[in-house]
Each structure stands twice: as C-alpha cells, then as structure tokens.
C-alpha cells in the first residue's frame, strides 16, 4: 500500500524544489504568505504553552510541528467554506480567520472562544474524537442541496480513524457524493499509542479505497504539497466530484497536551530526524533567494506584537457572566431552567 500511496512532496527537507512544474507559482508573495502564517501560528502556539505553564490558561494541546499541514490546508479554502477542526487545529482556524484573543479565551475555559467571527463558518473544535467528521459530511451535503460551490473540510488525527464516526462520515460523504475534504494529520501518535498499534494498515490514505473516495498521501511538513493537494481536492468538491481523503504525514514535536509527558512512551531520539516545517520552508526561501533577513525580522516583530496584544485582550476580557451558564442552552429556556437560574442568581447575590 505504501507503493500505491507514495508520499507526495514538492520541496524536500533541505528546501530543494522537487517539482519544477510549481516553480512559477512559488513566487515571492506566495511563499512569504505561507511563512507568515506558519510563523504566526507557531508564535501563538508557543505563547499558549507558556501561558499554561504560568497558570494563565488551562491545559493546552500544542500543534508544533504541524504548522505546514494546518496552514497549507487552510489557505486552500474559500471564504464560504466550512471548517471542522479538532482541539489541535487552532492553527488552521487562525489561518482561516478565527480571532486570536478568542482562541486564547477558549483555552482559558471561556465559551466565547467557540463563537466564530461573523461570516466565518468555523465550527467549535471537536473534543470527542472523530465526531466532527459526519458533521462535515452533513454540512457539505447541505451545500450540495443548495447548489453552491462551497465545501466542508474536516480535520482529524490518526487515532480518529479507529472511531466509528470516521467510517460513518466517509461512507455518508461517498454515498451522497458530498463536497467534503477529509484532512488527516497523521502525527504518528494518539496520545501515547503509536500508529503501528493504532492500525494494521500501512497507510491512512488506503482507507479511502474502501469507500470509493479518492485519496492521497502527502508530506504534511511540506506546506506547498499540502496546499496544492488540498486545492485539487477542493476543485473536485466544487465541481461536484465528491469527497477526498488526504493523509498528511507529519510529526507532533511535543506532548499531546501540557498535561502529558511524551518521554514516558516515546523512545529517545525518535523524531530527531524530522525536519520541522518552518525550518524546511526557511531553507527553501534561502535556496531560492526569497529570504530577506531584515524583512523577516520585521515580520517576526509584527507577529509577536499581534500575539502579545491578543493575550492582553484575552486577559482584560470581561469576567464570565453567570447568566451565560443558563442562557444559551435553548432558544427559549423552559420555566424550570429559568427557575434554577433565578434561584442561583439570588443565592450568589452580594457575593
């Protein structure tokens, strides 16, 4: 199966262009856009880890190492498309237009963090595993029924492919030929369980065969490969040619969450040969003379400022309102819920 699904890449670990046909498209502006977003979400991610260590936000699941997969896929989407992320996909969400201070708020236990900006079809990050996959099939089915050219993309990890909802979602999308992209980030670990214990299949891409869904296996640390393959899948979806399964092979550099210690289950030195995606892009930019030290420095400063401002905004956000505990469960809360609210508000009055 690895022969059937070779890992596709456009640039290699050393930053060499492998596919000359992309040369013209990889112009200065295009390349720097990828670098900007990858550096931006990396800065967010590292800041979030630090904030957690300082007790300023709650448990946090870092995505470091997966920036190319998240940025490459998100940049391939159109404004009317729908995103169904998991808890490790805030990089993709931020690239697609989620608000950064609200994203910090989410990790600080605030429900406001799930509310997308107006006009952005971003679902709350799915915390149960694989449950968002049928949602993406359903939303895309609705787009098809309405006759639009919009699509839905579902993000999920390698562990999710063992869940029933992965299979049910792919099957629905296949049967109803919905415009859905199933975007897998195979980061090779589901908390502590490595891919070879997760499945006895050589690839995740091959699981598409069972559903008659075209699938492709790509180097998830090559942002260009991720982008162009997601773009092809998007074109198929928009043209009425149904869903695609993408396996982006990547590597989770750090822990599952800030509450996890990967040294307990990962052999020493595992992954040290992985060239992480920002280094790889930097090498490419230097090889092909896109790298301008001063310009990059300025970009870094701007991004670091943006992240700092988002943290400040998160921290000065008004305190959570107790009413919000009750007010959003139903459009029209039933009497018994209103009674609970009233009684509790009375109880805490004066506190």
């Amino acid at each position, binding site marked *: 199966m690895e022969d059937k699904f070779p890992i596709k890449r456009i640039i290699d670990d050393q930053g060499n262009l492998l596919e000359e046909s992309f040369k013209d498209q990889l112009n200065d502006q295009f390349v720097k856009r990828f670098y900007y977003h990858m550096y931006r979400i990396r800065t967010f991610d590292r800041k979030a880890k630090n904030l957690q260590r300082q007790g300023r936000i709650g448990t946090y699941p870092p995505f470091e190492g997966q920036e190319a997969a998240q940025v490459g896929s998100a940049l391939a989407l159109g404004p009317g498309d729908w995103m169904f992320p998991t808890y490790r996909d805030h990089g993709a969400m931020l690239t697609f237009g989620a608000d950064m201070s609200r994203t910090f708020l989410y990790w600080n236990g605030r429900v406001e963090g799930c509310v997308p900006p107006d006009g952005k079809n971003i679902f709350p990050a799915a915390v149960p595993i694989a449950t968002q996959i049928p949602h993406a099939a359903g939303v895309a089915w609705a787009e098809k*029924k309405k006759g639009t050219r919009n699509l839905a993309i579902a993000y999920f990890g390698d562990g999710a492919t063992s869940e029933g909802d992965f299979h049910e979602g792919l099957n629905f999308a296949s049967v109803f030929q919905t415009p859905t992209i199933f975007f897998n980030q195979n980061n090779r670990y589901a908390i502590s369980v490595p891919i070879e214990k997760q499945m006895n299949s050589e690839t995740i891409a091959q699981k598409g065969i069972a559903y008659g869904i075209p699938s492709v296996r790509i180097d998830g640390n090559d942002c260009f490969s991720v982008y162009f393959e997601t773009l092809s899948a998007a074109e198929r979806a928009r043209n009425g040619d149904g869903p695609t399964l993408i396996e982006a092979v990547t590597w989770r550099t750090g822990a599952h969450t800030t509450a996890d210690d990967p040294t307990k289950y990962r052999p020493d030195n595992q992954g040290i040969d992985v060239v992480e995606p920002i280094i790889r892009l930097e090498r490419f930019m230097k090889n092909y003379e896109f790298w301008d030290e001063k310009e990059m420095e300025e970009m870094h400063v701007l991004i670091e400022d943006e992240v700092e401002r988002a943290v400040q905004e998160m921290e000065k956000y008004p305190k959570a309102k107790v009413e919000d505990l009750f007010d959003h469960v139903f459009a029209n809360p039933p009497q018994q819920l209103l009674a609970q609210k009233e009684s509790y508000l009375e109880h805490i009055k004066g506190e």
Partner: protein
Amino acid sequence: MTTELKKVGNPSSVTQKMTLIQAINDGMKTMLAEDETTLVLGEDVGKNGGVFRATDGLQEQFGNDRVVDTPLSESGIIGTSVGLAVNGFKPIAEIQFMGFIYPAYDQIMTHVSRLRMKTMGHFSVPMVIRAPYGAGVRAPEVHSDSTEALFTHMPGIKVVCPATPYDAKGLLIAAVKDPDPVLYLEPMRSYRSSREEVPVEEYHVSIGEGNVRKEGEDVTLIAWGAMVPIIEKAAQKAEEQGINCEVIDLRTLYPLDKDVIAESVKKTGRAVIVHEAHATGGLGNDVATTINDQAFLYMKAPINRVTGFDVPVPFFALEEHYLPTVERVLKAIQDTYQF
C-alpha cells in the same frame, strides 16, 4: 378528546380518522409540504416507507432528495443531520428503534444538545429525532427499550412522547417548528391500537404541556406514551371500586409540565406514577420530586410508582411480566388510597 381540542384551539372542521402512526405520517407530510427545507432521513424510510410504514408514500410525493434512505449508520444519520441542521435544513431523522439509538448517543450528547450552548447561539441544531420505543409487541431483543430518561437527563434537548393520534400530529409539527433539537418518541405498541379524528390541516400541540385526560378527586395517575391506555383502564376499574382517579398524560417529558402535576396532586393528595422504563433513575423520580417540591403539604399518602424492573427489557416471552399492567396499577391505586 374534547379537553385537548379545547386546550389547543383552532380545531379544524375537517378531520379524518387516523391511527397514531397515520397521524405521524400526516404530520411529516404536512411539514414536508409546508417547508422545502424539511427533510426526512433514516434507514428504510424512503422506498420502503419505514419498517412500520411511518413514512409511507412520502418519498413518492416529495422525492428522494427530501425523503432519503441513508446507510445503516445511526451515528452517521445524527452526525450528518447536525451538519444539515446548522446549514439551513430541518432534518427529521428516524432511528428505527430506540434500542438502536445508542451508537448515536455520543453525537446527541456531545453535539446535538450542546452546540447552541457552546457557540452562545451562533450555531443551533433544529432537528427532530424520531424513535419508536417500548415493549409489548413481541419484538426481537433490543427492539423494546424505553430509555427516555437517558435523554431527559441530557441538557439541551427536548423530549416528547404522544399517546394519541391527535397529539402525535400536533407534537410532531411543534417539534419540527422548534428552534432546538427534539427527541420524538413513538409508542409502537399504540401505533395502530386505536383511531381518532385528527384535523387534516396544520395545528400544533405545545411542547411542555401535559394534559388532564380525565378529571378525578381521589388519586392522580401520571403516565405517558404507551402507559396512558394502561392508566386509563386502571382508572376505570378503580372507579368501579369507588376510587375516583384523575388521569394525566405528560406528553412532554422534558421540560416537564410541573403545573399540571402540582395542581392535580394538590387536589387529590395522592399520586401513582407509571412508566415502563426501569425504576432506578426513571423519569418517575423527577415527577415525584416535582410533587415533593410543590405539593408536599397536600399529600395524604406516599407517592407510588409502578415501573419496569431494574432488568434489561426481557425477550418477549417474559415481556408481560416486565411491563406495568392494569392489575399492577390498580393495586398501587388501592394501596395509595387506603394508606
């Protein structure tokens, strides 16, 4: 029936005699005709018209884009319905038997019921989940469950359960029009057990309103769905012994109509709650709590419950021993009355 018609208002002059399942079918037909975003989907609901014929003729009339045979995939049905619902459609999803709803429990618990809450109303899931429930029709194993309490316990979803054809259509329409998810439980034992006049036009029975089906002075009997005919028969027998029972059909299981329960029990001072679901954690406990909270000082006897036992719903050879019977209910009425 007259009390219900009065309560709901606008009874159509044109009615038709329908069974409960015909009324469900008619309710779906009404909503499919009214609003083209309404969809019916589930296993065998299209060409076959449903294993009970609840969706009979709907695909023929509305086409296979709107009445959709899905894969055999409960979590997939509910999960894709979440997507359809947030993106402008109104899915009426059928789960073929309540005993098969469990693969979708995760979707209902973690998304259907809380998407509104977790996005502060930005996304909502206006959908109806229909599921036939209950024992007493000699169905195979796992086809007879009555686990409504798993869902009334779940915040963010309403649960309704009609006992009569009139309520079946009216509640179905109310469920489809509700801005939030509604689990619509169908007493399969009552599907074809009786007929009554049902308005041909659109009407609704409000979610959250119970119904006093018979007034009485001595003991309040409370049930829903397939147990309503049982308590009605028990009330008749009690009458012959000089015990005058009030009969309440809750109709909506969440949110409970606490007023109808409290008013009745304040009058009678006695209550017998009947459900076929298991005793422990059953919805009867919430009814009892309502009485405790609102009518404690009026009570003349402890609240009595007649329920299924804390055993898995048995294979049908023993189901009549599992289900509350008129005799068990009558005994509970006598015990309560003579306390």
